[in-house]
């Protein structure tokens, strides 16, 4: 996914003022930066503007980039900050208390309520798309530390090590946030899915 040696080579060529090197960086990273920004902003126009901001910051700050560090994690951080900064200019979306949507258990460790199986809904293309759209809204409600982890790992499919490095968190912290974010989105999807039983019981 990330070719660090080739990134550093390109960074050096940009620092040396080589013609076309910056443009090559834009071509290499614009889609990933856009997609990351889209995760924060959920809007094509804002994501496009955040992408421009991110590359403008890259242009101005590349001289300060420490080449002993990983380029992608530095630049993804720049891109996330560009998106956060645009998000702050918009009306504030309330974030939720994810604790309220964690699974509930009784004192002996069993589920406190029924667990309906709504998974059949994702087997149908149209209802799966509808659920995906809702899942996007539920991710947007999450506090940013959870939102960014689930977006980068489950949506963008970045490797766990890259997510942890970009967000400057440990692997255990990454796992804990990812799991809680998934539990939250699963619970919200359960609430909106009609709990249709499977047509035929297994066995």
């Amino acid at each position, binding site marked *: 996914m990330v070719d660090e040696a080739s990134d550093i080579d390109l960074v050096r060529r940009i620092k040396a003022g080589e013609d076309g090197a*910056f*443009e090559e960086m*834009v*071509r290499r990273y*614009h*889609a990933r930066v*856009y*997609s990351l920004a*889209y995760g924060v902003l959920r809007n*094509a126009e804002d*994501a*496009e503007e955040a*992408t*421009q901001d991110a*590359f*403008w910051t890259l*242009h*101005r700050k590349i001289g300060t980039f420490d080449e002993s560090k990983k380029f992608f994690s530095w630049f993804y951080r720049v891109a996330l900050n560009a998106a956060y900064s645009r998000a702050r200019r918009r009306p504030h979306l309330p974030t939720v208390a994810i604790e309220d949507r*964690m*699974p509930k*258990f009784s004192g*002996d*460790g*069993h*589920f406190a309520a*029924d*667990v*309906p*199986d*709504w*998974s059949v*809904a*994702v087997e149908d293309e149209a209802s*799966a*798309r509808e*659920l*995906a759209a809702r*899942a*996007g809204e539920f*991710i947007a409600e999450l506090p940013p530390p959870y939102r960014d982890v*689930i977006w980068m790992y*489950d*949506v*963008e*499919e970045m490797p766990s090590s890259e997510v942890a490095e970009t967000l400057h968190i440990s692997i255990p912290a990454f*796992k804990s946030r*990812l*799991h809680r974010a*998934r*539990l939250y*989105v*699963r619970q919200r*999807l*359960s609430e909106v899915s009609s709990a249709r039983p499977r047509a035929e019981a297994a066995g």
Partner: protein
Amino acid sequence: MSRDEKTCKALILDCLLEFEEGAMPEAEREELQRHFEMCPPCMNFLTTYRATGKTLKMLKPREIPPALAETVMVFVRSRRAKGEE
């Protein structure tokens, strides 16, 4: 005496992520697998946890604006031209 079996709570809160991401000793995986097979609520939870993951993979914006790289270059050049270094 054998070790106590894991509760549903421990399985869902503490073990499910590792179970799904494949980082788990085989003996523990088999123990959890048995629990899932014997416990309909946990099995439903696992199935819908997986369905959630499948749903999330559909969210990635499939369409990057076609002229985005060019738009970015135009933007950066115009800011440079204004001397906003």
